[in-house]
């Protein structure tokens, strides 16, 4: 990062730090609660937790405005929450309830929050890269000034659609920020069995796309880079790419730890824990501020789970509802 300038918007104010902490902590605690409740079988779809990776979503989403879009992955709780998705609607969705953000039809892997422009997440790796591209195309065409943050895992970079998307985004100078969450794993397989080299940033740059790598996913650094990328993109500057090296603390899917499974030990986990962004940012707050935020989050979470518990199941006739969107059509001119 370059040296801080006076009034540099990339340098967090005390307010910024409180907001960042709130977001990091909310995600951490929501997912811990999901993990705690999971064994009770109240959660009705497989969960891919982001615990340990929160800084990426928070660093990117914090500077986004509501009009900006996020295209998340199936490991998408963090992006959904960081962009301002409703906690009760998310938990209700995990519970399979009618009040869920996808009316109980999507589950954990298919979160969506149109009210804050979180696009639908997909369980098929890589598919939300091109759909995010499409949202960016729409923003450019509709001249909304909005940008799109597309999240993808290291595994998703192996799918051809990723390269097709980079090429098109750069060719059409679309306002899209590709955010690669590189946790070094696709399920249990490390990049050494999947990548010929790790020169991804260099590769992305051959498309004329500025690329930056964050070896420890420091939330302040990611946020700063995002602020600069957003400014450039709102100015018509075309796509940007961030490689955020991070670490998945828990198992690929499900609530537990899996350091006993033989495919990794907990040495890296301990390193990453030592620089846990939730704690680091929390440590920069006053105790009063931190306690107040923590308490508010606990209340919010408790209410969200209670809401999910109390919500009704979808009525049987909902099975057939929403297969097709209705026929309303009002032409729009002057876009």
């Amino acid at each position: 990062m370059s040296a801080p300038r006076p009034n540099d918007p990339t340098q967090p104010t005390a307010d910024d730090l409180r907001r960042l902490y709130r977001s990091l902590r909310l995600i951490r605690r929501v997912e811990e609660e999901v993990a705690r409740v999971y064994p009770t079988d109240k959660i009705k779809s497989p969960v891919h937790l982001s615990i340990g990776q929160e800084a990426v979503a928070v660093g990117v989403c914090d500077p986004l405005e509501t009009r900006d879009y996020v295209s998340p992955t199936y490991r998408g709780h963090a992006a959904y929450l960081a962009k301002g998705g409703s906690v009760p609607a998310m938990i209700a969705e995990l519970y399979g309830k009618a009040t869920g953000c996808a009316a109980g039809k999507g589950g954990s892997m298919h979160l969506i929050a149109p009210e804050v422009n979180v696009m639908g997440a997909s369980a098929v790796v890589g598919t939300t890269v091109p759909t995010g591209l499409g949202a960016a195309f729409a923003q450019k065409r509709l001249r909304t000034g909005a940008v799109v943050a597309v999240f993808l895992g290291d595994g998703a970079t192996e799918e051809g659609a990723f390269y097709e998307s980079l090429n098109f985004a750069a060719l059409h100078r679309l306002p899209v920020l590709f955010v690669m969450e590189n946790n070094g794993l696709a399920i249990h397989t490390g990049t050494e069995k999947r990548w010929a080299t790790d020169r991804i940033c260099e590769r992305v740059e051959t498309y004329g796309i500025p690329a930056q790598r964050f070896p420890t996913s420091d939330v302040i650094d990611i946020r700063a880079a995002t602020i600069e990328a957003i400014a450039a993109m709102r100015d018509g500057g075309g796509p940007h790419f961030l490689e955020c090296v991070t670490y998945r603390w828990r198992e690929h899917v499900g609530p537990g730890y899996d350091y006993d499974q033989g495919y990794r030990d907990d040495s890296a986990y301990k390193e990453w824990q030592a620089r846990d962004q939730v704690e680091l940012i929390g440590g920069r707050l006053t105790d009063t501020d931190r306690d107040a935020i923590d308490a508010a989050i606990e209340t919010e979470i408790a209410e969200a789970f209670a809401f999910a518990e109390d919500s009704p199941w979808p009525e049987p006739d909902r099975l057939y509802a929403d297969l097709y969107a209705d026929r309303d059509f009002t032409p729009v001119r002057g876009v």
Partner: protein
Amino acid sequence: MTDTRTLTYVNALNEGMRQAMREDERVFLFGLDVDDHKAIQGSTKGLVEEFGAERVFTTPLSEDAMTGLAIGAAVSGMRPIHTHIRMDFLMLGMNQLVNMASKYHYMYGGAASVPMVVRSMIGKSWGQGAQHSQGLHALFMHIPGLKVVAPSNAHDAKGLMIAAVRDNNPVMFVEHRLLYPTEAFVEEAPFEVPFGKARVIREGGDVTLVGVSNMVNECLRAAELLQEEGIEATVLDPVSLIPLDYDRIARETDKTGNLIVVDNGWTCCGASAEILADLAERGTRAKMKRMGFAPTTCPTSPALEALFYPNPATIAQAAHEMLRPGKTYSPDPERAKLAYQVAFKGPF
């Protein structure tokens, strides 16, 4: 209301897209080569000139991501028409079509919708061969959440295009290359042909021929041949395949007691299988038969390609065999050729 203006299928497609784009500025047209001088065999001619490169543009050869782009643009406020010069190339976009487009509205509980049109063309003959000739509409019919339409004439090409663009769901728009030069009466003002309403093109009491896409014409020509034998055929055009007008097909089948479904595609798990299965479930007493591509890959050699497709003579023979089993009948090749002069222009 009958119109007296005739238009070719290709120009009707063009007019349909043009009017849809004039009507709503969210509509854009993209896909490989839509903006070159060949203009997808003329169907996109003049559109880049009228609407500009922002709304009419070619793409890299990246069908997978471009399909995703259409979906993403559609869910965030645009109305794309994605164009493929061959249906075969859709196989590269299958993941986005099957796993995203068809499911988006349902999977997110109605929170978003995907108003997009995917145009693609069935190729035929001139030795195009295995990978440039497939009619793969049945693959899309199988997946809930997609709509599938297959205009057999210029009138429907325009009316279905306008209806498809106005629809808030992904619509697979199946064209047939051999239909491009065919003419029909087409109103000049924008109009819609509704989905899910089959149309009787010709009435006859002895046998019901259901044709899909270009096979409507082959059926009409078969009907001419059959008439010479004293057999009267009803020819029915389903117009849209999803939704499918099962009731009308059943009614027209019950009237004659004899049904042949002729598809521009394979029969196994095809549109023709779907129609027969539905009728079977209804307990129809009619005799029923499917015709379509031979159950092989499409060969290039004209000696074999000719045998690959149903044609007026083979359709007429099948109907004859159904009505007068055991009686030999093979239409005079000269008369069978003449059948190719039959064409349906309307009124609709």
